[in-house]
């Protein structure tokens, strides 16, 4: 399970601890804005050694920690 590592990445990008549930929206919580999302996608590629194709650049895929973990695990 990658939730903890993903949560650490988000905290580093947001500059504050991730204090929401894994199924809550990172956007609605204010942890990620449009520009931080671009950083997160790059970090996911670097940290997990995956390539996120343009066809997957859909913000809804990265809305919650659970969705991100599911996506990453499918591509590792």
């Amino acid at each position, binding site marked *: 399970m990658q939730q903890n590592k993903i949560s650490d990445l988000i905290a580093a990008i947001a500059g504050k601890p991730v204090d929401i549930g894994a199924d809550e929206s990172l*956007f609605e919580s204010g942890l990620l*804005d*449009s*520009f931080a*999302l*671009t950083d997160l*996608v790059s970090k996911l590629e670097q940290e997990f050694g995956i390539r996120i194709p*343009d*066809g997957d*650049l*859909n*913000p809804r895929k990265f809305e919650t920690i659970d969705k991100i973990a599911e996506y990453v695990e499918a591509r590792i």
Partner: protein
Amino acid sequence: MPWIRGFGKHLPERIVTNTEMARLLSVEEAWITQMSGIATRRFAAAGESVASMAAAAGREALLTSGVEANELGLILVASGSAERRFPGPAVEVQQLLAAPQALALDLPMPSAGTLFALVQAALWAPSRGPVLVIGAEKISPLLLAEPLEPGTAMLFGDGAGACVVDPRGGLARILDWELGTDGTGAGELKLELQGPIRMNGRSVILHAARKVPAAITTLLERQRRPATDIAVYLMHQANANLIAKIAQSLGIAPESFFSNISLYGNTSAASLLIAAAEWPGPWRGPIVMAAFGAGFQWGALLLEGEC
């Protein structure tokens, strides 16, 4: 390949500050600045149109280029905010400039439309002679249409930019380009016949921050030019934060990217050539123009300045 010979611009007189926009949109003034880097934008007067602003910018471009209207072989007008379905503004510009010999062609494309028009001009100029490329937008009447979208409405302004592409010589030679289209983004940024502009900002920024650096990198690798050797990057002025993000992706200092978005906001198709008209130069060495917009459509253009 032909040259870009000279630039022109037209900006409406009315300056709209963030104070006024914040009041109109019921948001915090500081939020507009923080999210966009925009301080002011221009709104066109009731009597101004896409065509009238386009013609004003075109006249200035002809003047700075030393080209007469009766020498033009083609007029290209990119706009996402033309006031009617047809005819588009290009034919009006032909009349306003008194250039009856010139073909007139519209590109109903905002934002990246001008970059695509420049490529069209480079292809047409060898056979048609000088080409007048114009990007012009009158978006302000649509911004405040209901339902209000403050995050989108705060971004935009009106204006026009222009340049002459000439097969005989000029400031900078057009060397190469890299263009892209991804129709899966068609619903993410759109303007129906009745406004307002609808934008999924997260999606647009996510794709722009990836696709524009990729296009620039592909172009520069093909031309064996290091990104650090580029004299200036002239971008579609969409959002100051996005420009900074693209600079970061390329590993380039943000100072290499000319920006005037704080003054005019996002003038869509007009912004690239307004920026080029205002960049103080010199037009020497390799120069990159780049843009991203609705569609999605995007690209980069490499010039070699010869002044």
